[in-house]
């Protein structure tokens, strides 16, 4: 298999070209995932760019992004494959008299009657693919087992058809908000990447790349204020996406710098709980 990336640095630069600022850890793990042919389990607080990472990598290598959004009650007919019953029924009825039963039997369990769902689609695809399994912590522990075969062997076993093996190994990203502990079996098969709130300098860079029209000084101030706010004991600390929203707001308001008053008035963009807003406003004005 060809390697997609030359070195860690090339991953980093490439991601930067598609407007995703990766740090050493992120770039390193993406590079390794490619070399080792292993899925990446991305974990971290909401809004730190976990899903965006998968999208950016897809954009970078020019691959199609196939996304499986997980939810409670997801089962194999929605994740892997399903037989097209209606078509099978029609097939049986169409030549009721002519064929022998055994012919039809073999026939209706052919790939023609198979509806592919995201996971199967990802491994049968001819073009390069990035598979994103989003919020994997939402499925039940039992359903996780569905993923194990595809994650370690890149194959799907269908009892009637046999085993379908991947034509090319896709890059797989799993994201998790860590609402529950994932099973050991799943973790063992993945590379683990924890994406946390970025360092101040990186956050500033992110604001600069993502928000058009923001001045260097404003971005610096924004990053500093957000860092201060994250140090307060809040219900939900502001995420990167909220920082970007806030920066956009300030740019729209036509500000070049923020003072405490303006920051307080726009805090609701950054924080989503009333108690958090009150607390942050107090902190910003008092000390």
């Amino acid at each position, binding site marked *: 298999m060809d390697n997609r990336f030359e070195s860690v640095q090339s991953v980093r630069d490439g991601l930067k070209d598609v407007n995703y600022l990766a740090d050493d850890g992120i770039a*390193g793990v993406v590079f*390794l995932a490619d070399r*080792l042919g292993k899925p990446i389990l991305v974990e971290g607080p909401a809004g730190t760019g976990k899903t965006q990472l998968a999208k950016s990598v897809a954009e970078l290598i020019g691959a199609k992004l196939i996304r499986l959004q997980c939810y409670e009650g997801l089962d194999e007919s929605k994740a892997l494959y399903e037989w097209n019953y209606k078509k099978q029924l029609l097939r049986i009825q169409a030549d009721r008299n002519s064929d022998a039963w055994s012919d039809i039997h073999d026939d209706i369990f052919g790939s023609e009657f198979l509806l592919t769902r995201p996971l199967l689609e990802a491994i049968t695809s001819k073009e390069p693919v990035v598979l994103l399994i989003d919020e994997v912590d939402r499925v*039940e522990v039992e359903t996780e087992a569905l993923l194990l075969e595809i994650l370690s062997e890149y194959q799907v076993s269908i009892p009637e058809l046999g085993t379908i093996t991947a034509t090319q190994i896709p890059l797989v990203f799993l994201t998790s908000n860590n609402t529950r502990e994932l099973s*050991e079996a799943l973790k063992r098969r993945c590379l683990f990447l924890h994406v946390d709130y970025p360092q101040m300098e990186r956050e500033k860079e992110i604001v600069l790349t993502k928000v058009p029209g923001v001045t260097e000084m404003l971005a610096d101030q924004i990053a500093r204020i957000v860092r201060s706010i994250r140090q307060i004991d809040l219900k939900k600390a502001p995420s990167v996406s909220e920082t970007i929203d806030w920066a956009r707001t300030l740019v729209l308001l036509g500000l070049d710098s923020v003072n*405490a008053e303006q920051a307080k008035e726009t805090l609701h963009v950054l924080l989503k709980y009333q108690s958090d807003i009150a607390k942050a406003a107090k902190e910003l004005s008092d*000390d």
Partner: protein
Amino acid sequence: MLDLLSGFIIELRNAGLPVSLTENLDAMHAISHIPLEDREAFKYALGATLVKNNAHWRSFETVFEVYFSLRGPEYSITDGDGEGSIDDLLQQMQDAQMKGEGNGGAGGMDSLTPEELMNILMNALMNGDQALMRALARQAVQRFAGMEPGRPVGGTYYLYRTLRNLDLDGMLDKLMEASKKEVGGDLTKLEERLEKDEYNDRIEKFKQEVEAEIRRRLVADRGAEAMAKTLRKPLPEDVEFMHASRDEMQNLKKSLQPLTRKLAARLARKRRHGRKGPLDFRNTVRHSLAYGGVPAEPKFKYPRPAKPELIVIADISGSVAAFARFTLMLVYAISNQFSKVRAFVFIDGIDEVTEYFKKTEDISEAIHRINTEADVIWVDGHSDYGHAFEVFWDKYGKEINPKSTVLLLGDARNNYHASQAWVIKEIRQKARHVYWLNPEPRSYWNTGDSIVGEYGTHTDGVYECRNLRQLEAFVEKLA
């Protein structure tokens, strides 16, 4: 390399991280793809393959530092005292002097007076100069830590000695003063706060440099394996409540929140997906209409287990305060799993604090109010379980009903007062369950003035709750 890596992995396992054989193999594969000179990439390669839980990252980092700190080029131990870095420092120092700060003559770092050293440090912090900060950390350790080869003292001792001499808190004030001067005039509150955070951040980095330097020296002195053993810290979920340091407390607090979220999700799921109930006859008949009157699809009633009513009675005297605080936080964080939660705290007097939690959404604020406002002192402020229980029984005893579960928190160190264990007996007769959670190790129970056995006979169970893991397991069982 292979030997080193397997030693590293054994150490990780000793530190409590679950590293499986496949992960071990993955790590070997991974590092073959990474240039070994790139220390950061090397670290992340190992991290991604070996550490699958973010809470374990710190432990991993510590072990990594110990095993691989000597290998990076810029970390070689010799240049700490060698010529290269001294030259470097002199250069830096002269820069500092040009700014009119230091006034000592040239002559190497060693000849500087402590005041000059402080000035240089202040400048470095002011400008966020990484290289100079690292050099200064080295110098500070060399000068203040007083490290002696072979002396069996932990790294924290040296760290403490170094930092005490540097007076970093005072440094922060000075830095703030200086930046005020620079702007000329007062800063606005917001600016002041931002500046302060910035300096705090830098000072924190400097502290880490000092710590790393001490570690490097200790490793050079004693060897990686012995060092790793002394540095081994328990994982956050294994930290004991009663002996946690301030840092560990902070970490505990941080890990409490995701933990409660997980616990709540798990409990809610359990409630929904529990055992199916008995046949729901009406529903089955209704659905049978779709099959021409044949009850093809039996329907079952969903069991709705009653949510317990919880009464928490917690000892908040010094020795066990942290434990009580954590339990209250945990219980309130998942309070929607209970129909009602009431909280009482005592030392030798008892006070109800349920109101504090009701008024605010913020649990930590409520805890703070408990510490400052609750009226828990009756005579001398030494734990008196007997009196507290007696008062509880008089005032609130009639509110205990068969739905309530009573949780008693404390080490039952009664300072040789009367136990009044009959209260517990009475409570148990009225309540559904009575449990006692004790933060002390089981081997300490019933020694000295601990009378947990006497109370324990009247409860449905006494549980050892020394760390977050045990506490979590208990709460899950409870709800």
